[in-house]
Every structure is written in structure tokens, then in C-alpha cells.
């Protein structure tokens, strides 16, 4: 016979206001397995926990039911309290009579009746519970960071600084990401590259960081603490060890293609260095664009390369690594201009996006920092900036706010005015969202000191009329139609998950939200964790965010990853699925329904990896032969619980 103790919590009036807790305790006290029952005002308080511990000792309880709030709140509290006095923590169960009862009812009599049923069913469950020990598993003390923008760079540096090894994988030829493309940053207007490049160099010099650029993660297996990853390293055809950056190859290369780093506003060669401060600092041969290295087709670069750094005969390499945690920092892209019919489908050269404008403002950019119209190279005298281009428009485009556009548009207009002193800048906005340190002041400066004209309203149409672009809109504050003839239109395009983010969601099989950003476990309390244990999120891959937020989240992700890999071994919840091999016929239904890939066929029957199993029970419900059961959630226990709920009185 079990010796169960039932402890009913008042939770102030939270429970006692709707449930007659004394009656619950009294009724449960009559149960055949219950030897002690009582109530207390706040069971989770210090005295409450002591009450439970004393009762366990005094009444020699071997099972405990706490009838209180959700197990999500205090299961751990009471399990550890019971463990302190010698009970197995899995012999303690919570009967949730708050969230599932008192909070959702107002009838005392029926609420009490339901609370009794809930508590009684948990008594049946706990009587069937087996004592369990946590599953222990070793940890690979290494972190994989996917994405080499500011988020990935910061996370990698933080992990390395803590003394652990990091693999930083970036799909482009250099780390730096979008931040390397920016000219100045709000709200301080300091040079983006000036603050980023020291971090890039730090990454390249840190012996703990293995930097893999021009590489992609193509496969992942394993579980938290012990992931196996496959990384594909694309060939550069240029040996970074030999290349001395003399530029001879670039000079002779006859192939001209748009330069992605300059958003296509300049050109590069087929053999190129993406930008002067690139890390790693080496050339890459774009084999898709190259004419060919044999002398008949071209081969000019090979001829001029004195150090013989160019080698055509290299192939993609697949590198396998083992890591304990993974930080995903795959960044964002801009919503494509061709989605915006109202603003010319991206077909007019003089309607540009924010990143194009950034490159234009950059000293190393296509115009060497001068603001010029792409169509004719003239300095634009009137520029219209349009905020929320694609954002906050659930009917036509994207429902969410891209968060950074208010700020960078103010910055753009300000920098334009600094470059073109007699220029006029107009900003169309819906609302100004400037909730960051120094942000409101920055907007205020743009409006008051820089004489930028803010117009509240969203333009309905932008079209060309001769040399000019006509912007039609309505000033919703004055209720007047507005028509502005502009030389250049800059669209603050919405942020969307980067292409790499979509790809990595498929490879990692991790959760994404309705807008395809990576999804966190809890938006408030667990904002940097993915629902897959061991995956952590950083930067704009999770949601639109600015540089300070990105860096903060990257450091948070790094510290979360460190808390995984810093342990000698991980403890895993032991209430997982188990197979009765004698009953399993190997039908593989469980394998097909397992959301965690925790079950595999071994020798004609299913086998559960206890570390990967999250104990969701899908397999046990689906198993047609009764071979799969959930520890401490067996069919017998569930039937006992149902019978006790159906029982009268």
C-alpha cells in the first residue's frame, strides 16, 4: 500500500476563493491510499515547504500530491523539497487546481467538486509512479555558431573568451554581415566599420575560434550536448596562405559582374576581395562567373599570380564536427523591392532601398560616399524617404514592424543633409517608434535641428515623370493630398528572415514563427532558446532588431550555450518513452510520429534515445501494439486516473 500525503494550497484567495480547500483535503483524506492530508495558505512559501517535509517524515509518506498551481510553476520546488527528506522527486506530483480549476470557475460547489476529481486522479497517478533517476549524458565542450554577422561574431567571441572552442560558419566569403555594409550607425553616427572591424579581426586572431567562411551547415544529428554537424566548405580556388593581396589577378580578370557587397551599385571581377577589410583577407574565385582557367578559355589570373595561389583543382570539402550547443545567427534580408507594385516593382533605378543608400553614403562605396542618383549620377536635390515599405501592412505585405526603419531613415535623411547642404529631405511615416536609449533625442534632432520634413502618411504611388519621380501621398494630420517631385526615393524596406535562415530551419528542423523567423521558446522568459534543446538564437534571424539588441542577444545566447557546454554532464528528464521489446513488432508508427527523431529501428524493434526523447507521449498514444509506454504515464495509470474522475462523489 502506498502512503500518500495530499497538501492543498489556498494560494491566498487564488484557489480558496473558488475552491473549498478544507473539503478537498478532507475528501482526499478518505482515499484508500491517502494517509495524511492538510491545507496551507501558501504551500510554496518556506513554512509551507517545511510543512510538507515534516509531514513526509512524521507520517512516513512515500508519495506526495501538492494540489496547487500549474506544475510549470512549482513542480521543481516541491520535488527538491521532498528529495531533501529522502523521497524520490518523481514520487511527487502536482494536481493543478488553480489554472485548470479555480481561475476558470466561479461556482464554489462545482469548483470544489472538480478540484477533488483533479487531486484524486493525481493520487491514482502518483501511486503508479516509479522512482526515477535523471538520465546523465556527457557534453562536447564546443559551440557551433551559424552566421558571421555581428550577432555570430559577438557570440563566438564571448564563448571563446570564456575559454571554450567555437566553430563560426559563414556562407559568404567574409564575416561582417550587413553591419559591414553600413556607413554610420544610429543614434551616435559612429562609423559602422570602425566599430565592427576590430571584432572581425579579433575573431580571425582568436585561437579558440575556428572560422569557416564560404561554408554552410548541411546536416545535423544528435542532441543537446552532443551534436554532430556536417559543414560543406566551398572551394575558393585561391590559397589564403599564399595570396598576398597584390590585386594583379583582379586587374587582369576580364569578367565583370555586379558587386553584391555594394548592393549591385558597383562592379567586381570574377576573382575578387568582397571589401577591403574582409576577414579572412583573401581573394575568392567566383567559379560560376569565371571563364575558365585553361589558357584557351582565359587563365589570365593564373598567369599573373606570382605566388601561385590560384588552383582550379580543388573541390568542396565536407567537414564533420562535434559540438555541444549551437547558436543560430543567420540574420535578415530586405523585403524584395519587386514585391512593391505601388513603388514601381523595383524597376526604376532611382527608387532604392536603405542598404543601397548605406553603400552610397559609405566612403568605400560605389560613389565614394557621395549621394548620387543611380540613373544619371547627378546629386539629388530632393529626396523622399518612405518608411514601412512592406512592414505593418497585413493586407498586402508583412504584418509586423521591422523595428529599425524609423531610426535608420532619420539617420539617412540626416546624413543626406550633411552631404547635400541645400538638399530637401522628406520622410513619410505612419508612426515614429523611437524606443531605445538616445533614440527619441535622435529623432528630435532630425526634426528640429536638421530641418527634415516629416509627413504623416503612407504614399500610395511613386512613378516617373521625365527626370523626376512623383510621390503621391496624403498628409493625414492635415488631411491634404501631397504630391512631391523628387530626384531620389529611398524605401525603408521591411526586414525578412535571411535566405540562410530559411535554409537552416530545414537543416536543423527547428521551430519558426508565422513569418519564418526563428521561434523562441517563450517570448518573455526564454527569448534566446529554441524549442529544440541546445539551439540558441541571436540577432535578426529571430526577429527584426537593431545592433544593440542584436549584440545583447548574441551575448545572452553565448551565455546560454556556455551554461550547456560548461557542465561535465547534462541531466535529462527521465520520464521518457520506453519500448517493451517483446511486444514491439517494428511497425515504425512511433518513429513516424516522433517530433524529436528520438526513436530508431534497431534489430526489428524500436529503440528510444532517452536523451533525445522529450516525453511528449506521441509514440505511446500511436503505438498500436502497446509496446511503447511513457515512464510514469503508463496506460494503466491513465485508465486509473480516468476511472477516478468518473467516480461519483
Amino acid at each position, binding site marked *: 500500500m502506498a502512503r500518500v500525503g495530499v497538501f492543498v494550497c489556498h494560494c491566498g484567495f487564488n484557489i480558496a476563493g473558488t475552491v473549498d480547500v478544507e473539503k478537498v483535503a478532507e475528501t482526499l483524506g478518505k482515499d484508500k491510499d491517502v494517509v495524511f492530508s492538510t491545507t496551507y495558505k501558501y504551500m510554496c512559501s518556506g513554512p509551507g515547504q517545511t510543512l510538507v517535509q515534516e509531514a513526509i517524515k512524521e507520517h512516513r509518506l512515500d508519495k506526495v500530491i501538492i494540489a496547487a498551481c500549474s506544475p510549470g510553476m512549482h513542480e521543481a520546488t516541491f520535488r527538491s523539497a521532498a528529495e531533501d527528506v529522502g523521497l524520490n522527486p518523481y514520487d511527487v506530483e502536482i494536481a493543478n487546481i488553480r489554472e485548470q480549476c479555480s481561475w476558470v470557475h466561479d461556482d464554489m460547489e462545482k469548483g470544489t467538486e472538480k478540484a477533488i476529481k483533479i487531486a484524486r486522479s493525481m493520487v491514482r497517478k502518483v501511486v503508479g509512479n516509479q522512482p526515477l533517476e535523471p538520465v546523465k549524458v556527457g557534453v562536447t565542450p564546443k559551440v557551433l555558431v551559424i552566421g558571421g554577422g555581428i550577432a555570430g561574431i559577438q557570440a563566438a567571441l564571448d564563448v571563446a573568451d570564456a575559454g571554450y572552442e567555437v566553430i563560426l560558419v559563414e556562407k559568404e566569403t567574409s564575416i561582417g554581415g550587413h553591419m559591414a555594409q553600413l556607413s554610420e550607425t544610429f543614434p551616435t553616427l559612429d562609423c559602422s566599420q570602425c566599430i565592427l572591424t576590430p571584432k572581425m579581426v579579433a575573431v580571425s586572431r582568436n585561437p579558440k575560434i575556428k572560422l569557416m567562411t564560404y561554408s554552410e551547415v548541411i546536416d545535423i544529428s544528435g542532441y543537446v550536448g552532443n551534436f554532430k554537424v556536417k559543414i560543406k566548405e566551398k572551394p575558393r580556388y585561391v590559397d589564403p596562405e599564399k595570396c598576398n593581396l597584390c590585386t594583379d589577378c583582379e586587374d587582369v580578370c576580364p569578367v565583370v559582374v555586379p558587386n553584391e557587397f555594394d548592393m549591385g551599385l558597383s562592379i567586381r571581377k570574377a576573382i575578387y576581395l568582397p571589401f577591403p577589410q574582409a576577414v579572412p583577407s583573401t581573394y575568392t574565385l567566383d567559379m560560376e562567373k569565371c571563364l575558365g582557367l585553361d589558357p584557351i578559355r582565359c587563365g589570365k589570373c593564373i598567369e599573373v599570380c606570382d605566388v601561385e595561389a590560384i588552383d582550379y583543382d580543388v573541390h568542396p570539402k565536407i567537414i564533420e564536427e562535434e559540438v555541444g550547443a549551437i547558436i543560430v545567427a543567420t540574420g535578415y534580408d530586405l523585403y524584395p523591392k519587386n514585391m512593391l507594385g505601388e513603388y514601381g516593382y523595383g524597376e526604376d533605378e532611382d527608387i532604392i532601398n536603405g542598404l543601397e543608400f548605406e553603400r552610397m553614403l559609405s566612403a568605400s562605396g560605389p560613389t565614394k560616399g557621395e549621394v548620387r542618383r543611380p540613373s544619371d549620377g547627378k546629386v539629388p536635390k530632393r529626396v523622399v524617404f518612405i518608411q514601412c515599405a512592406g512592414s505593418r501592412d497585413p493586407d498586402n505585405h508583412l504584418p509586423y514592424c521591422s523595428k529599425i526603419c524609423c531610426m535608420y531613415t532619420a539617420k539617412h535623411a540626416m546624413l543626406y543633409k550633411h552631404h547635400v547642404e541645400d538638399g530637401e529631405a522628406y520622410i513619410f511615416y505612419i508612426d515614429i517608434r523611437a524606443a531605445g536609449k538616445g533614440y527619441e533625442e535622435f529623432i528630435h534632432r532630425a526634426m528640429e535641428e536638421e530641418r527634415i520634413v516629416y509627413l504623416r502618411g503612407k504614399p500610395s504611388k511613386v512613378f516617373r515623370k521625365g527626370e523626376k519621380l512623383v510621390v503621391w501621398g496624403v498628409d493625414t494630420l492635415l488631411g491634404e493630398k501631397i504630391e512631391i517631385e523628387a530626384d531620389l526615393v529611398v524605401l525603408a524596406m521591411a526586414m525578412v528572415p535571411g535566405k540562410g535562415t530559411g535554409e537552416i530551419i530545414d537543416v536543423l528542423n527547428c521551430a519558426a514563427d508565422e513569418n519564418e523567423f526563428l521561434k523562441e521558446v517563450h517570448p518573455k522568459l526564454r527569448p534566446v532558446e529554441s524549442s529544440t534543446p541546445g539551439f540558441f538564437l541571436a540577432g535578426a534571424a529571430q526577429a527584426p532588431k537593431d545592433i544593440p539588441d542584436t549584440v545583447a542577444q548574441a551575448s545572452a545566447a553565448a551565455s546560454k550555450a556556455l551554461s550547456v557546454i560548461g557542465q561535465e554532464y547534462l541531466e535529462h528528464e527521465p520520464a521518457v518513452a520506453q519500448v517493451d521489446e517483446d511486444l514491439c513488432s517494428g511497425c*515504425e*508508427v512511433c518513429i513516424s510520429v516522433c517530433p524529436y527523431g528520438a526513436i530508431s529501428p534497431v534489430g526489428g524493434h524500436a529503440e528510444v534515445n532517452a536523451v533525445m526523447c522529450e516525453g511528449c507521449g506521441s509514440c505511446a498514444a*500511436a503505438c498500436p*501494439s*502497446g509496446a511503447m509506454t511513457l515512464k510514469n504515464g503508463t496506460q494503466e495509470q491513465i485508465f486509473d486516473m480516468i476511472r477516478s474522475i468518473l467516480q461519483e462523489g
Partner: protein
Amino acid sequence: MIRIAIAPLGSCSGCDVAIADIGEDFADIAKIAEIVYWPTGADLKLEDLEAIDYIDITLSHGSIRTSEQEEILKLLRKKSKVMVAFGSCACFGGIPGLVNLSPEREDVMRTAYESISTDKGEWPSEKSKIDGKILTLPKLYNLGHSHDSLVEMDYYVPGCPPVESQIRDLLGVAVAYSKGGELPPKGTVIAGARALCDECDREKPEKIVIDRFYRPHEKEADPNLCFLAQGIICMGPATRSGCGTRCINANMPCRGCFGPPPGIRDQGSKMLSAITSLLAADREAELGEEGLRELLERISDPTGTFYRFTLPSAIINRRLNDGR
């Protein structure tokens, strides 16, 4: 010599044929036993059974739906030392057990005796006077029954009909009995010890996902690939092994005649939960309740599919009161 009875109740006689089908080995029975009652093999009536003072082993087969069948079953139990539920009807209620879904007895009578093609719309009654003599007919029950819901059974031989290997195993039990040897524990099911997939060598994909159901005639099934992976409902995962995958070898899905695997009471609900778990497993959110319902509605006869042989022994097993 021991005394054996082979007793058909509401039977199609397929079980009799299966016993006869073991061929010359049938003669082995004669070495140890005397068949004292087998109405299919010899013309024996209720009076003949009543006259037998005891039986060692009885193989009862067929469904129970009339008072006469119940009476004979109870009489057999009384006279027999060992009762074997032979075949799916005896074990679980069988295909005739699907009657539990049907309308009331009166409706059956109406259909049978008052349809346009019937001359005289006169219902037979349980007692009627013909030529001055009283004719009694058994009462027709509303529901079908498995044998063990009415009397205690010792062993079970599932199958519609059981296969040769099971009959040989049963013969082994009879031999042991005749020699006073050790017998299997009461309640033993003479069949496999796992679900049918254990015996099936069809290939399975990495993940089985059902996007659409097909009835067997709607699609030419790949003979090497798991039926479920092809959208064809195969009861194999929720059916006891031991048949040697005879239907599957003929490229037809398992219909579940061996009943639930060990430890499972309700074969249909187990299979149903497996099937619904697999249904569009990767697209549940996208399809929503409506989309999933549409997919499920393609199962044209869910009860007949999942409870084809086991409805009377299921947890929810009938539509109305027995009227017994």
C-alpha cells in the same frame, strides 16, 4: 483415447474446412482421440450432444446470436474439460459481430419477411402451431457475442479461419492432454506473440506519412512497400502475428482477423490512434481541423475497417441493448 468435439455455432463452416485442410495429419487426431461431436462431419443433433456424458476438448467456432447457439455453447462448457475458442468469431465475435451496428431485430425481420419479393408477410414466431404440432424457433438476439462473454474459455485460436500451424500447435496441446502432460496456462492465445509487422518483410520509408487513404481496389499496391506508407489501411500493426502474412503475400492489406496483439484489449481504437497519428503528420497545422476531417472521411467504413472482427469484444461495442 480422449474425446474431442468440434462445434459449429453461428458458423460459415470455414473453420471446419480449415481443420479438415490439415490433410493426412488429420489422421493423427484419430490416434489419440475420438471425435464425439462434429455436426459438420456427421449428422448430429442437440439430442446427441445431450446424450454425451463428458468431453475432453471442445473446439467451438462461429458467432453467437441466437438462444440456441447460447444454449449449445453453455451445454458444451458444462460437458467439456477444455474449451477452445476456435476462429475469430469465437474469440472476438467476428464478422457477424458487426451486427452490433445494425438496426433492431424487428427491422431485420421486416426486411426479410415483408419485402416486395416475399409472398406472405408472416413473421416466424418463437412458438407456432403447424399441423397441430408446436414448432419452436430460437430467439434472435440483437447483438453478436464472443464465446468468452458468455462462458469461460480456456484457449483461443484466432484467425478467419485459423492457419495450419495453429491447428498443429493445438494438436500438440491435445497430445499433451492425452498423455497427462503440462498444458499451456489458461487464456493462452495459440498464435504469434507480437503484432503482424514482426512477420512482414515489406520495406518501410524513413517516416510513414499518410496523405490520402486508398481502398485496396483504388490503387495497384507496390508489393514490396508497407501498405500504410501507400495510404492503404493495413491492420498489421494492431493485429496479432501468427498467420504468416497470408493476405499481405497476396498483396492485400491485413484485415485484422487475428485480433489485437498481446496486452491490447481494443484492436480498433489502437489502430485508429495509430492511423490518426500518421495522418498528414507533417501538415497538421496547415490542413487544420477541416482539412484533416476531409482526409479522414475517405475511410468509407471506419467501424468495419478497424473492428471488422472484434466489435463485440471492443470497449464500445454496440449500438443498442441486447434483448437477450
